[in-house]
């Protein structure tokens, strides 16, 4: 049984991750993890201390658990880049700050870092308004480049075909064909996938709450540490990490919102998708990296997410995830593993680490932290 320990600031509770039922059993690991959570309250997604929280929390957890594999995500700069007004001078300073945290982690832990920049960001140039279509247009999970179009009218198809900011319209069959080797069959992909041009994002019926400032820049290639010389594709990273885990202590570190041009350390570029499709930062990219297989269709862009959000859905603390993904790095490794990150509540699913500790923030509202213990039986 996987357990979730919620820390809502000065109040903690332990649950069965799948059912959401309260867990009364005590395991020595629970108390240890609760102590780490208590010592490291999350500062918030937009707080400059957010990345320091990742390093501090990871080092503390490592001291208690002694893992051989560590998975980290630094994301404060991604949230700030997306929603804050940053000048041209602000961004390099922001990048420098996050790498100071990476350096601090590496220096203190002694782990070999394998760093992945999940893709750069570019100022928002235009919004593509899909709200007036007859059919239903949906963007999911903060996607800017992709929207799903469901049940379009002939007029809708003419409108989107003529739109200058829409780069491509892809039928479900063509989308499935592109990733025909994916574990999921793509049946939940939208009828049509709309692809925005560089710098543009879709506006669909949904929230218009916060002003978006930056969106993912073309991320056909993303940067990885130069030491990953055996990696040329995003799906190769998994094998490269596995090889290194077998011989030493390894930290796979995701730095959110960074493209090849931003990466301050020696790096190489790896393919981040296939043909016209590239991964935006998010669960699909994470899962692709941690499983070594393209995972476009598990929670496909623009799908009818609300149909899966009713009573009876399992994993209530795991957002839209319906199951624990198989074959992730942490799930298959014999070595002790931890994951710490401030990106979202999907880290415990994507990493599969024995112990994950992540911020519990939704729509930038800081509600505390969640630790997930998948395994407590490793020596």
């Amino acid at each position, binding site marked *: 049984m996987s357990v979730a320990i919620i820390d809502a600031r000065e109040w903690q509770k332990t649950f069965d991750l799948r059912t959401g039922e309260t867990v009364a059993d005590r395991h020595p690991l629970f108390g240890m993890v609760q102590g780490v959570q208590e010592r490291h309250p999350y500062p918030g997604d937009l707080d400059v201390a957010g990345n320091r929280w990742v390093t501090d929390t990871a080092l503390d957890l490592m001291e208690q658990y002694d893992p051989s594999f560590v998975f980290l995500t630094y994301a404060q700069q991604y949230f700030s880049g997306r929603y804050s007004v940053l000048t041209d001078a602000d961004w390099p300073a922001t990048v420098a700050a996050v790498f100071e945290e990476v350096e601090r982690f590496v220096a203190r832990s002694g782990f070999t870092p394998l760093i992945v920049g999940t893709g750069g960001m570019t100022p928002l140039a235009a919004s593509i308004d899909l709200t007036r279509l007859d059919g239903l247009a949906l963007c999911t999970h903060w996607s800017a480049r992709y929207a799903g179009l469901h049940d379009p009218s002939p007029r809708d198809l003419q409108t989107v075909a003529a739109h200058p900011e829409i780069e491509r319209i892809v039928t479900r069959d063509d989308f499935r064909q592109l990733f025909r080797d994916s574990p999921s069959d793509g049946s939940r992909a939208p009828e049509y996938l709309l692809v925005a041009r560089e710098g543009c994002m879709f506006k669909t019926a*949904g929230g218009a709450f916060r002003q978006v400032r930056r969106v993912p820049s073309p991320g056909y290639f993303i940067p990885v540490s130069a030491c990953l010389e055996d990696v040329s594709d995003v799906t190769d990273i998994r094998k490269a990490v596995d090889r290194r885990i077998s011989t030493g202590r390894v930290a796979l570190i995701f730095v959110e919102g960074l493209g090849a041009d931003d990466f301050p350390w020696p790096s190489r570029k790896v393919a981040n998708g296939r043909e016209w499709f590239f991964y935006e930062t998010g669960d699909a990219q994470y899962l692709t990296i941690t499983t070594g297989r393209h995972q476009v269709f598990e929670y496909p862009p623009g799908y009818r997410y609300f149909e899966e959000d009713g009573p009876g859905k399992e994993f209530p603390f795991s957002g839209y995830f319906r199951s624990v993904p198989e074959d992730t790095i942490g799930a298959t490794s014999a070595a002790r593993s931890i994951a710490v990150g401030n990106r979202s509540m999907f880290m415990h699913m994507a990493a599969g680490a024995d112990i994950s500790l992540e911020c519990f923030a*939704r729509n930038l509202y*800081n509600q505390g932290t969640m630790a997930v213990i998948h395994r407590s039986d490793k020596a």
Partner: protein
Amino acid sequence: MQCNYCEWRCDLTGGKPGVCRMYEEAGGAIRERFPHRWSSCISSRIESIPFYHVRPGSRVLVIGTMGCNFSCRYCSNAFIAKEDPTIVQERMLQFSPAEVVRKAKQMGCWSIVFNVNEPAMSFPTLQELAEVARSEGVSLGCLTNAYTTEEATELLASIFSFFNIGLKGLSPTFNREHIGIPSAEPILRNIRRLAATRHVEVTTPIIESVNDGELEQMARFLADVDPEIPWHVFRLLPEDEMKEARYPNVEKIAGALDSVRSILPYVYFHNFVGSEWVNTLCPGCDSVVVERFSLGCGGDRLKAFHCVEKGCPDCGREIRLLGDVAEQWNSREVNR
């Protein structure tokens, strides 16, 4: 020219903006400045609003506009409620009332709930929406601060069939310092009025050592209005001007609420992840009749619904619920 929608009764003569900046004088009448503009039009779960006693487990379309007539120091939606409404127009959604109802049906929603900001900001648009929604069999609910005039409260009652009313505090000092209004008296009056003919739930955010001393007094007021009114006590999530404030102590507030459960049967304590005070207990036999998950700030969801029709499965006592529980709440998707 005086605006009579809310208790501020602003003078809008000669282009004066008023407190909310959402109305203007035009041709000898009060006119809505930004009709048919929406900040939100998204499907969600009704528990997330929160409504715990309206069609449990159903999918709702959440809508909102912009602006507010309060200036709560802890506002969670300040970027839309406190922002100059002129500035946010370019990112607003533009839907006619018929289009809003159509979006609701496309996403399989039986109800539309006005959330995010204060519905009194958009009365004319909401009146139009109500007319269309009624003709399509879609019900409307809202969250409101209920700081409306008596005549505007009648308008609210004509538009919405279920309400969650914010009762933020009782003392004039609290209301002046934290909410920016002189008194809660109009709110108390309107809770009484709306509860007389509509389904009403009430929400109170608690700030430790500030308004937690009023819990019993508020409970007694609510019980006098309606002895079975559902009451959501929120642990304050510090935002906006109170972002640095301490998160209130859960155990302390939960302990204080134990005593008010003898005054009101449906008392909930949430707005934080994992709360164990979100289930509905039968007032007759204390059986758990509805179970929920609390995911904090707008994320609650139904876990299990045990009622038989609207009654307790153990003792048969009627449970306060709005809506026919036999409806297939989430199967209403329609094509064009």
